């Protein structure tokens, strides 16, 4: 147990020091934090509960718009801010910016949670492919709808408040990194705490055999909704941070970006190994590094390279990196392996 805490402390120190050790990579590191949050939260459905959701992007986009709207709306008329031909220029003072961000992030986390509860009540009765397709529709619909709402900029997009002029050139990057890293730590701690309770076992029971779980007297619907609400809370938070980081929200390309973010969160969790706590973290990191690498070295072919990577993952690491490691070095995961038994199993296969 002690060793575990040393590990966590080391990671924490590394995380806090990272933007100062690699100052040029602050934005990439912040995005990495957001990606990890998305992968971890997707894993609650996709990995632990066995419900492949493509709809988590809904909460991410919602959080993004909410955070920015609150941040602007608290101090200025939102409609005038987003109006394209508007001649007025509004500038946030530093205190307005940070206050707005703080309130905005709370709203960005809470409202998607409520939305997840309501939508979950309606659609979590669906199973398997039906659930996946239904959630796929959620993100697409949200993108189209938000693209028509004038007050949040509609097709024009929404420019989020620029970072105020405090603390020099590096302040913005450091602020957003620390913000996203804090959110990541909170997410990790919360999810780890949840996984250490009976709740995780119930989610696993739903994944393995939902009917049997119900027959055992578990109210599966209730747990499925709660699970989704937990995801939505952190997805919304991540969205809010990402909105501020990118600085410009577009309905389908940035906020409800199901084609990229929505698919990436699934890929990252699968790459790392779904159904594990560390899998999504490792998956997201590896994915991000590969992606940035492809982007630099295979300009114009990056999606082809990414596609090849996905094919390789599916063929050679169907269980993800963690799953592959576990199979290769089971003893390192604390599993006792009887060599004779293992051989017998291999021969049986």
């Amino acid at each position: 147990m002690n060793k575990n805490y040393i590990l966590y402390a080391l990671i924490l120190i590394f995380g806090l020091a990272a933007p100062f050790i690699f100052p040029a990579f602050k934005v990439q590191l912040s995005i990495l934090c957001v990606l990890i949050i998305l992968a971890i939260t997707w894993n609650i459905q996709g990995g632990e509960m066995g419900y492949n959701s493509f709809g988590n992007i809904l909460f991410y986009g919602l959080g993004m718009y909410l955070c920015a709207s609150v941040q602007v709306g608290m101090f200025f008329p939102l409609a005038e801010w987003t109006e394209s031909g508007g001649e007025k220029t509004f500038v946030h003072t530093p205190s307005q910016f940070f206050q707005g961000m703080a309130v905005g992030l709370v709203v960005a986390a809470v409202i998607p949670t409520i939305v997840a509860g309501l939508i979950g009540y309606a659609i979590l009765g669906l199973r398997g492919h039906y659930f996946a397709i239904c959630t796929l529709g959620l993100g697409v619909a949200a993108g189209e709808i938000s693209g028509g709402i004038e007050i949040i900029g509609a097709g024009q997009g929404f420019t989020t408040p620029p970072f105020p002029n405090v603390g020099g050139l590096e302040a913005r990057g450091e602020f957003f990194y620390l913000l996203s890293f804090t959110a990541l730590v909170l997410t990790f701690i919360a999810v780890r705490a949840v996984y250490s309770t009976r709740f995780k076992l119930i989610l696993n029971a739903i994944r393995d055999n939902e009917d049997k779980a119900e027959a055992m007297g578990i109210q599966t619907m209730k747990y499925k909704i709660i699970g989704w609400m937990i995801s939505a809370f952190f997805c919304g938070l991540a969205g809010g941070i990402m909105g501020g980081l990118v600085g410009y929200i577009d309905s389908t390309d940035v906020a409800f970006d199901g084609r990229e973010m929505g698919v990436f969160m699934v890929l990252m969790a699968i790459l790392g190994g779904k159904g594990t706590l560390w899998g999504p973290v490792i998956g997201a990191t590896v994915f991000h590094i590969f992606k940035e690498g492809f982007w630099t070295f295979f300009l114009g072919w990056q999606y082809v390279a990414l596609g090849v990577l996905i094919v390789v993952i599916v063929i050679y690491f169907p269980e993800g990196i963690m799953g592959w490691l576990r199979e290769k070095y089971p003893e390192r995961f604390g599993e006792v392996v009887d060599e004779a038994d293992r051989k017998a199993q291999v021969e049986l296969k």
Partner: protein
Amino acid sequence: MKINKIILSFISAVAILLSTSVVSFAKVVGDKIVLGAAISLTGKYSSNGVHTQNGYNMAVDRINSMGGVKVGGKTYKFEIIYYDDESNPKRAAQLAERLISQDGVEFMLGPYSSGLTKAIAPVTEKYGVPMVEANGASRSLFTKGYKYLFAVLAPANLYLDVAIRTAVELNGGKGVRIAQAFEQDAFSQDVRLGILDAAKETGSEIIIDDKLPKELNDMAATLVKVKQMKPDVLVVSGHTKGALTAIRQIAEMKVDVPMLAMTHCDAAKLSKQHGKNSQYALCASQWHKTLTYKDNFFKDGMTYAADFQKEFGYDPPYQSAESSAALLVFKDAFERANSFDQKKVRDALAATNMQTFYGNIKFAPGGQNVDKPMVLFQVMCDGAGKCENKVVAPLKWASAKLIHPIPKWSER
């Protein structure tokens, strides 16, 4: 707890990877001025992204071969670092950050489209990196108080303003009935706002006001309405795809409308791709090769078009021309500033007042070019089916007379 070891070694691997990646400082190295640009090489804007890149490259080659940039008695050559923004604003903002903080770029060229420029401008502004952009026309770019953003093009709301005014004029000064369909993106929506303003001023009525999705390949619903309601003018804007889709479906459905006004006809190579079907379409353009502006590098529009054709094998759309002009503006500003200090270059850019083959360039405090009007051209075909874009407005440059109303499909 051996798993800890795995995770620890993994983290240290990441750390080593990060720390060994080369952080190069580009800016002005030796005799090179390195500019950064995020360009849409893939995704929905890829064709216009390539037009933009070709325009940039053409100008870089030309300026370098004609002696480069002279600053402080020394001659420098331009070089551009490109990244692919995948037509995605999120990516574009990240790339701007990367160009500036990792590659050390101190001067930027714009991306393609208003949306992407909107995403990049806050970043360049924060770092005080002067950016000359040639493809972000949305008005909202120029009302944010940006100090380091300069656009060589006229703002989007002016694109089709002339078309509406011409229609009203031809209607004996009475208001016209307008049907319009615009893609849901920053640029097209701003063109729409321009039409709304023009309609208000001329007492015209908007009878259809549709929004088109970003992945634009069908607008039949709008066209069915147009057939029913018979407006005087149909306005469509949705980048290259919008122009192609409109012409394809108008021809398929034989929609008769007296005036068809669009954007991006030349970027879509309409007259080549759709031939006679695109005839009579009226298009807003920032530039046309027959305009009579001149400079020392490309001489004039016709020469530019011929050289571009030789180099890239197609007629330059205005997106390429304005992109080339951006480099001319940078060169001029560097030489006047006689320094690579970002602040000084910025001030020199703000004081720009020059003529290029693409048009006059003079920036308003908001950063938009106020010295260059839009032109309208009409696609005109001869008997053999060979189609050409001919300028019809403003009259100063008109090389042909506007054909109005458009003949019905049954009479063509």
